[in-house]
């Protein structure tokens, strides 16, 4: 059960005319896993998610949902799938109850179980109070929740969420993240976002996409822990040379950023930091800034999408 593959994508391509939106993408998603899709705007996140959900057809490649090929067995594959598009697919002239009931029936539930699962989905998404209100009159946050409720109403194995927290306030974002974490326990979840901390706090694995290509597929834990060194940004009033810094034991690498500041990589122990500070005092460099450098996901992301793919591959592999 634990390692059941829910989504398998192999060699996926999608063209819009001559423009290639998705290039040779392959990845898997297991049950109990939350996958974060990260990429700049226009990277092909939405297109990939739409192909997985069967909204678009692939130009080439294979997508299997819960073991069923989405193009040859669409009905079976789609019954295991819940999809929240970027724009929640709401009928604004219906009430929340009517809407969710319709969605449940569309997913093939009988009337009785549709009613039950409507109640359940409303409870999960905090919509119980607004069941009788028209979707049109709900705030953006509640509309977004209705969109999520629609995607989970038939308790599908795979839940695909395209920017589930966009346009929400911080409290709502926290609630939705908790909900996603909960769902991720016994479903497989793919979510796209361009909020980096969201991936770090919610996802088990991150996929970074740039210009339609998968440039990174890694467990979040690996991404964080692999760094057995600490990165510091330091600045001095009377800066030494890079060579002088490298002489200090524990300094693995030094890179001059501007006339007074450096990016240092230190061995991951307290001692090397002590040594650095002692040396700075002794030589009178006038240390005036000491700052832990940006977190590694953001750095990885920036590197990958700004075209420094080869370099980063060397650093992280």
């Amino acid at each position: 059960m634990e390692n059941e593959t829910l989504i398998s994508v192999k060699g996926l391509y999608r063209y819009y005319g001559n423009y290639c939106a998705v290039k040779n993408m392959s990845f898997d998603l297991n049950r109990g896993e939350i996958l974060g899709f990260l990429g700049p705007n226009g990277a092909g996140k939405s297109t990939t998610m739409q192909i997985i959900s069967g909204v678009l057809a692939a130009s080439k490649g294979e997508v299997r949902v819960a073991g069923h090929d989405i193009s040859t067995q669409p009905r079976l594959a789609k019954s295991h799938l819940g999809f929240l598009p970027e724009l929640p697919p709401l009928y604004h002239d219906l009430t929340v109850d009517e809407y969710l009931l319709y969605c449940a029936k569309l997913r093939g539930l009988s009337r009785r179980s549709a009613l039950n699962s409507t109640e359940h989905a409303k409870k999960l998404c905090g919509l119980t109070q607004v069941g009788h209100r028209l979707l049109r009159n709900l705030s953006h946050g509640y509309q977004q929740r209705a969109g999520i409720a629609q995607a989970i109403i038939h308790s599908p194995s795979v839940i695909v969420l395209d920017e589930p927290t966009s346009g929400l306030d911080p409290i709502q974002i926290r609630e939705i993240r908790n909900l996603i974490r909960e769902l991720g326990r016994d479903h497989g979840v793919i979510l796209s976002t361009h909020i980096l901390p969201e991936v770090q706090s919610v996802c088990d694995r991150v996929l970074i996409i740039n210009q339609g290509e998968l440039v990174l597929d890694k467990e979040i834990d690996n991404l964080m822990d692999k760094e057995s060194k600490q990165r510091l940004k330091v600045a001095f009033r009377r800066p030494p040379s890079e060579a002088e810094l490298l002489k200090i034991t524990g300094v693995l690498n030094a890179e001059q950023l501007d006339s007074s500041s450096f990016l240092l990589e230190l061995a991951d122990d307290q001692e090397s930091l002590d040594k650095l500070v002692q040396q700075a005092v002794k030589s009178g460099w006038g240390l005036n800034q000491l700052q832990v450098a940006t977190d590694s996901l953001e750095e990885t992301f920036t590197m990958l999408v700004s075209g420094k793919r080869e370099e980063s591959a060397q650093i992280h592999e």
Partner: protein
Amino acid sequence: MNNIFTIATHELRRFFKSPLAWIILGVVEFLLAMFFLLLLDQFLNPAPWYAGRGVTEIVVASMFQESGIIILLITPLITMRIFSEERRTGTINLLLSSPVSLTELVLGKYLGLLAFFVIMLALIALMPLSMLLGTPIDLLQTASGLLGLFLLTASFAAIGLFVSTLSAQPAAAAIMTFGILLMLWIINMATNTGNETTRLVLEYLSLRNHYNNLIVGVFNSVDVFYYLIVSLTFIGLSIWRLDMDRLPA
């Protein structure tokens, strides 16, 4: 089958959620009631050239004739949002990611649309039928006319449905539907140009010609098949068109 039914009832319910459906029903009924009164008046004070014609021919047949034209005018307004709105608001993604085939989707939408038109036709039919209180009418001719009106409406609806898959803008879909319907309605007027074959083809293509046969009580399977062919063709085109949207260019 279940899916078709779910989509059809959803569609019908949503029609009546918007004031548009009620307004359309009200206006159509009001206009036709006026025609009905005028026709009744003509029947009660017949002009000399009405000599030898019965109430069914003077009132019922003319009533159906007017109904056909009015339905032609309002069909674009009813069908325009069927798919274009789904595309504009993104709800089409819900349908496409659900375990529902495109055929079921289109048929469900079409049946919901037909159900709405059946309600409208029932309201229209009540007017001529109310004459039964005072005078016998030719029920078979009335039935044939009603069947004709239903088939005509069904083909209008199929054409409108197809056009709404073409554009994400309801207004654009409405204008296009109106253009196509009107062209097919009057196309037989062009029959005195061109040669014999062109004349026959144009006459066959006209939505109005086949309808005229049915409302005067001439039940010919050719006419019935004509409407079925038109409806099925445009339903098929709708499915094809939605599939095209998914496939890469």
